[in-house]
């Protein structure tokens, strides 16, 4: 299941979305998330859907690839939908059994929440798929620079994030290897109840931790050997600079947000 998570992966392609400044993408994603949680009515969702799928189309990332990322949240999605469906009180009751009701509000809530979650995952993974982790952390670093004044180590945090992202696939591979090695010696990761399963994970987690620390040590040494000494005095290979397309993208994102708000005011139906 861990392999299905597309968040944090990068999909290389040559598109305008890929070339946009990461700050634009971060800002637009933020607006998108806010829009997603305050839209009302069929028009709002329509605007969001059009916006989302046009962006995906422009980004040249195959939709299949993005949808794969949803596999990881299938259970969360099901639970949210079922709870909303069964436990929301409403005006018209279609079916009733003890505490459980299926009502009109319940149905709309279930649908809206599922759509929200799905769109949330699709939208945010689209951002990470079109932005290299380095660009992303660069964007975060420059956007959060004001926090430096109150002694938040912004550069160090950004660096840690980008390294963490780089090592996710390596550690997944390592987990796989250790798992197979332990299974070859008779370890059992499948059977038993949940507590037994958790206990069985120990022979997997201990070597994984040890190896992660060893890697961290090696990496720190390699970074030192390449003259790394924190954020001070560093130059950038890819300094962030706004271009015309970035200004246009800002405009598009703001227009999109305004449109969603207007739709909420004008046509808050059917919810």
């Amino acid at each position: 299941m861990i392999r299905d998570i597309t968040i944090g992966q990068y999909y290389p392609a040559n598109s305008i979305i890929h070339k946009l400044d990461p700050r634009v993408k971060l800002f637009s994603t933020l607006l998108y998330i806010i829009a997603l949680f305050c839209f009302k009515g069929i028009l709002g969702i329509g605007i969001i859907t059009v916006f989302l799928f046009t962006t995906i189309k422009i980004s040249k990332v195959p939709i299949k690839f993005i949808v794969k990322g949803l596999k990881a949240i299938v259970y969360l999605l099901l639970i949210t939908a079922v709870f909303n469906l069964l436990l929301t009180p409403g005006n018209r009751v279609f079916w009733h059994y003890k505490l459980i009701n299926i009502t009109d509000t319940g149905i709309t809530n279930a649908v809206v929440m599922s759509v929200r979650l799905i769109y949330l995952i699709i939208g945010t993974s689209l951002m990470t798929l079109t932005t290299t982790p380095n660009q992303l952390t660069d964007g975060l670093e420059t956007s959060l620079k004001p926090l430096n004044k109150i002694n938040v180590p912004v550069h160090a945090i950004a660096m840690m994030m980008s390294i963490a992202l780089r090592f996710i696939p390596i550690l997944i591979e390592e987990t796989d290897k250790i798992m197979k090695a332990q299974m070859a010696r008779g370890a059992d990761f499948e059977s038993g109840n949940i507590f037994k399963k958790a206990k069985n994970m120990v022979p997997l987690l201990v070597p994984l931790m040890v190896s992660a620390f060893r890697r961290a040590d090696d990496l720190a040494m390699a970074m030192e050997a390449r003259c790394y000494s924190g954020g001070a005095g560093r130059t950038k290979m890819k300094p962030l600079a706004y271009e015309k397309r970035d200004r246009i993208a800002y405009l598009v994102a703001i227009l999109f947000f305004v449109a969603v708000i207007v739709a909420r005011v004008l046509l808050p139906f059917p919810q």
Partner: protein
Amino acid sequence: MGIIKAINLVHEYIKRDEDNNVSDIVRALDDVNIEVEAGQFIAILGHNGSGKSTFAKHLNALLAPTEGTLVVDGKNVKDEKNIMDIRKNAGMVFQNPDNQIIASVVEEDVGFGPENIGVPTEEIWERVDNSLKAVGMTEYRKHSPNKLSGGQKQRVAIAGVVAMEPKCIIFDEPTAMLDPNGRKEVIKTAHKLNKEKNVTILLITHYMEEVVDADYVYVMEKGKVVMEGTPRAIFSQVDALKEHRLDVPQVTLLADELRKSGLDIPKGILRREELVKALEKNMAR
């Protein structure tokens, strides 16, 4: 004046028990004297635990000597304020290619070193282009390092060091985790850098085949330099090499056995072609 000069270098690892008392002292380097001239290709051979990696870490000021002096490019490693200069001029390639690549895109990783030493943006791009070309990885510049083979990853790591334009590069067992093809790629790249960019190379390894083309070879054992000389001089002492638990290349071994059993073959055969020639001479006689 050589680019690297180690005089009576000593390094001790001090082990402490729970009460912080010294429980054991291991002399990893014991009175080591090594001198390297600029532009040379030097190899240091040694078995596991011979102290060769400890020596390598001194050259990059990652470890400080317990006794003795080590001068890299005219600067003493003991002096704190020289450390950045030394690291700039003596690049280092490590054993595990995965654990030394920082970025998720090849070209960004190559740019990491120049970024750290404050090179202006345009020059970083120039350096990245040049160093990727030097190691033959230009076509992979937009790729993720995770999808490359071991040899390719190690070449990216080399490019990352080359981009800092060091005067010398230390290879600390760069091939220990690679398959035979990857090993060849890396050694070929090291020789290419030595010839075309005139970079001083220090290759630390326990594979004897890799040192055949070096200018000068040091053999280390238990923290001491036990043999030194040109590869030919070293390889002609097959018995001494075996004593130091080093695997002598098969060609050299075969030539040695043949000579011992009476054939007229010179000492210190390094390559297959040389042995063939020597045998042909024997046949003609």
